[in-house]
Every structure is written in C-alpha cells, then in structure tokens.
C-alpha cells in the first residue's frame, strides 16, 4: 500500500474542491492506503468544530471526524488559522495544529503528493 498526502489550500465548506478532497481521502483510506491532509489558506477554516448540519447543505465536520477516526492524519496551518480568528481550542478533536514544516515532512515521506486549491 502507498502513502498519499494532500494539501488543501483554498477550499471552504461548500466548495467542490473540498468535497472532492473528502471523497478521495475516504476512498484511498478505504483501500488501505495511508493518507494525510494539510489545510492552509481558506482551507484552514474547514477544521473549525461546531459546524451545524443543515439539510441540502455541504457539511465537512462529520466527514473530517470520520476520516480522523479511521486513521487519516489531518493538520491545519496555525498561522492561517490565527489569521482567520480560529484558535487552537476551536479545532475539531484529533486534528493537529502545526506549521508548514509538518506538511513539508509529509511531502518528503509520501509516495504521492496532491495540492488542491483555487477558489
């Protein structure tokens, strides 16, 4: 099995890129691959807990919690989060809080690297 690391740079809840990230990560993890996700830029707001589930509306938190419980490593850029008024205590339990070196180490270690971005 392989290791896929994904950087999600500019995706907010409701973004198709973000939905794609969640589904691809789930499929790779289900097939036995190791997966890690790095959120920065606007993507850093995706890990804020307390997201309300509204009918017919995109929702991320439940999927992120499921990925974390299945062993997917999820980390948010602390600078990008602070810049958006998101504090460490706001983060979904199990998600990591670090700086760019975390993602660089994953890029170095992984077999495949995908950077998803653009809004």
């Amino acid at each position, binding site marked *: 099995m392989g290791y896929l690391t994904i950087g999600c740079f500019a995706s907010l809840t409701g973004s198709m*890129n973000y939905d794609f990230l969640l589904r691809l990560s789930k499929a790779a993890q289900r097939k036995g691959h190791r997966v890690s996700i790095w959120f920065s830029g606007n993507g850093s707001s995706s890990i804020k807990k307390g997201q309300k589930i509204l009918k017919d509306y995109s929702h991320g938190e439940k999927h992120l919690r499921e990925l974390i419980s299945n062993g997917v490593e999820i980390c948010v850029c602390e600078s990008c989060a602070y810049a958006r008024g998101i504090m460490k205590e706001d983060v979904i339990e199990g998600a990591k809080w670090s700086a760019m070196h975390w993602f660089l180490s994953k890029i170095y270690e992984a077999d495949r690297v*995908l950077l998803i971005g653009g809004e």
Partner: protein
Amino acid sequence: MKVAVFVSEYRCNLNPLEYIPAEKLGFILVGNGVYHAVLKENYQDSPILQQKGDFYVLLEDLETRGCETDCINPKVKPVTYDDLVDLIFYEYEKLMWLQ
C-alpha cells in the same frame, strides 16, 4: 515521468502544460471539469481533449450533474473514486491540479 493532471474547472489555462516534461499525461476530469467530457463548442471537442494523453472522467461528479454515461466522449474513460485511487498509486507518479 507520468503526470496525472486534475482538471476541476470548465474554463482553465493549459499553458502550464507546456512546462511539464512528462513522458505520459493523464487528464482526470473532476468537479465542473467533467463538462469537458460531454460538451462540444462549435462542434469541436474541448481543447483539453485535443491534448496528447489519456482521459478519465469521475463518474460521481458526472452523474450529480445529470449527465448520462452514453454522452461521454469516446476518448474519455469513466472512473469511480476507487479507480481514481488506483490511477494515483499505480498508473501515475506526479499529480497536478490545473486551475
């Protein structure tokens, strides 16, 4: 080097491809990029499908847009998320997100 190019928009800039020294390109159409697989403009295939390479379209994103599989351009192979994972790990080495 084998490069998988993810295309997530219907309008996108192909210039970056000129700088990619790939021996093989695989275009993976996702999100609104799936429209490249089913629409024509002035009776012509999308500029993406006129590139040299293999073409894949994500079935889930196609079906959520109401497109039928029988209107997929014959150059393009429909794939699921599971197939996509296999392409990423076993068919291509580098991954690129085209905006």
